[in-house]
């Protein structure tokens, strides 16, 4: 039984898969260094086992530089942007369903600012003892470092852990403020989220006030959101987190869907509502925390992408499609961020926030 919406789903799905496969190639050719699409294709071809055509324009040196830029800077960056976009989108989609609040988003719910606070706290606590001074500069500098850190070291893990604790704390605060059993009150929950967001924002500012100007500047840049410090080593943790979370969400997709129909109905369908909701919220904070720790605060993606998907396919929860669309969106926003200003890049958080606030107003208008 293939009806119109089913067909549209398959068409969109195929298009997105195609776009996901082609995007790295095209996106890699944009950036400060002018690299031609043919060069990128050649490098990818080499990667896939083909022979490197020996120095087309005669310069062996230029080829290796280009190769390094593409493979060590742009490719991890594209992948990180994809993972971040996918993660934020599925987190937003699941948050909107389990709280039955169409305006839920990791950023608007204060989860992002909680995570930022946790991360900044860890950084400032440990950087003062000198123990993490090296990491402090390593994590928060704008320029990507070629000295790859192993992903499992304590210093690379402490920021994500701090971010996760902060994020979980903010989820708790939002729930306490909005009151138990009143999760259906959309506006109340949103206000609690905004209040929590301000609270943690203020705490973060306080920490920054007591830190050095350089540290404050780099934290500021980081909190605006950027993929500039992407490297193969810091790609692993977010990818695994987002990948595993996506699997968990796919496994529980029926249960998540049933929550949409109200707590009592979900209960009669054999779902342990309180447990499911709490675990999903914690899973969303984990995704958000991991992404905030790696690429800073990127807002509104979790709001825009699920809503766009919902407009296209009402009633479905195509999690994979949401993830792909979110990832692609993020990669191209990052391309814009790299190219829009001459000789300088714009933090992606600024672009998503600008787009997102317009989108937010659009949803508010629609809800009336």
């Amino acid at each position, binding site marked *: 039984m293939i009806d119109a919406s089913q067909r549209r789903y398959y068409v969109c799905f195929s298009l997105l898969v195609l776009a996901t496969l082609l995007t790295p190639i095209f996106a890699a050719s944009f950036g400060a260094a002018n690299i031609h699409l043919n060069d990128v294709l050649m490098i990818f071809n080499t990667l896939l086992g083909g022979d490197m055509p020996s120095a087309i324009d005669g310069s062996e040196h230029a080829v290796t530089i280009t190769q390094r830029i593409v493979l060590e800077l742009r490719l991890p960056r594209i992948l990180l942007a994809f993972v971040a976009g996918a993660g934020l989108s599925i987190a937003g989609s699941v948050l909107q369903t389990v709280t039955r609040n169409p305006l839920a988003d990791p950023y608007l719910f204060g989860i992002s600012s909680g995570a930022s606070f946790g991360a900044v706290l860890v950084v400032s606590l440990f950087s003062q003892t000198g123990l993490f001074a090296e990491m402090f500069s390593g994590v928060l500098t704008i320029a990507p470092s070629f000295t790859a850190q192993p992903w499992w070291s304590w210093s690379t893990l402490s920021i994500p852990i701090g971010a996760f604790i902060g994020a979980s704390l903010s989820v708790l605060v939002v729930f306490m403020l909005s009151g138990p059993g009143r999760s259906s009150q959309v506006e109340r929950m949103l206000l609690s989220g905004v209040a929590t967001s301000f609270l943690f924002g203020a705490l973060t500012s306080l920490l920054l006030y007591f830190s050095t100007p350089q540290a404050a500047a780099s934290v500021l840049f980081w909190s605006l959101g950027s993929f500039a410090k992407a490297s193969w080593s810091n790609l692993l943790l977010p990818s695994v987190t987002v990948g595993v979370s996506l699997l968990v969400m796919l496994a529980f997709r029926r249960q998540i869907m049933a929550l949409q129909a109200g707590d009592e109905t979900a209960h*009669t369908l054999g779902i342990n509502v309180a447990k499911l909701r709490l675990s999903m919220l914690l899973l969303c904070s984990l995704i958000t925390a991991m992404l905030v720790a790696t690429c800073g605060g990127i807002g509104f993606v979790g709001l825009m992408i699920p809503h766009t998907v919902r407009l296209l396919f009402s009633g479905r929860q195509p999690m994979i499609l949401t993830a792909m669309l979110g990832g692609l969106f993020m990669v191209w926003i990052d391309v814009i961020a790299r190219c829009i200003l001459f000789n300088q890049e714009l933090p992606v958080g600024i672009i998503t926030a600008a787009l997102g606030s317009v989108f937010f107003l659009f949803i508010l208008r629609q809800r009336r």
Partner: protein
Amino acid sequence: MSESVLDVNHLFWQVDNKTILADIHFSLPKGQMLGLIGPNGAGKSSLLRCLYRYIVPTSGDIEIFSKPISEYSSKLLAQNIAVVQQDTPHYFDMTTEQLVAMGLTPHKGLFDSNTAQDRERVVSALTKVGLQQKAQQQYELLSGGEKQRALIARAIVQQPHILILDEPTNHLDIRYQIQILELVKSLGISVIASIHDLNLASAMCDKLLLLDQGRLIAKGTPTEVLTERQISEVFGVCCDINLHPQHGKPLISYFYGYQPSPKGCPDHD
């Protein structure tokens, strides 16, 4: 005596020292339809919620197939009991078919996808309630009667042994009131339904439970439960009871303009 699917004994539920349900006991024989009647606030919904474990009672035993419901997992309980609620909650965008397919939830493992057999079950449930034409329509855009029938289709897909209906005929016109209860009866499942309309309850139910202020006032066949005295005591209205010309069960005619005095209702012959 047919086997009973549900047994309730000494059921109490108290909130803040206020007794909502007191010493309820009844059993539901297999394949029968049990009607729950009583005035507003009598505790009908609370009793039903205890049965599907949304409320945990203060004390008492509820057993399904002679096994306490506390020993059932959430999933197993949902495989045994399906519920159609009183107020249809607000679903933000879902087609009728998707809503009905939600009934598959308790039968599915974590990564299971819908098989051809599942889809057939959804289609046949939709056909049974006469909504096959509306499968792709938004649930929100259905009429009240259609929504109610869609929810019953979801319960059918859930394949329960017991069906609980909390005021399934509320807000429906008389045609759908009769149609929905007849539909439910035709499924051959054991049913408990709270019903406001006493004549409808009389006509459709095998047994009735009469509740008032959380206490069980009467239980038995409609003829045993629906007496002029009990109706005037519990509902505070006067009435005359005759036999229905078609099915021979009690037919209640209410009187207007009387308040029952402590001595009861005036005689009308």
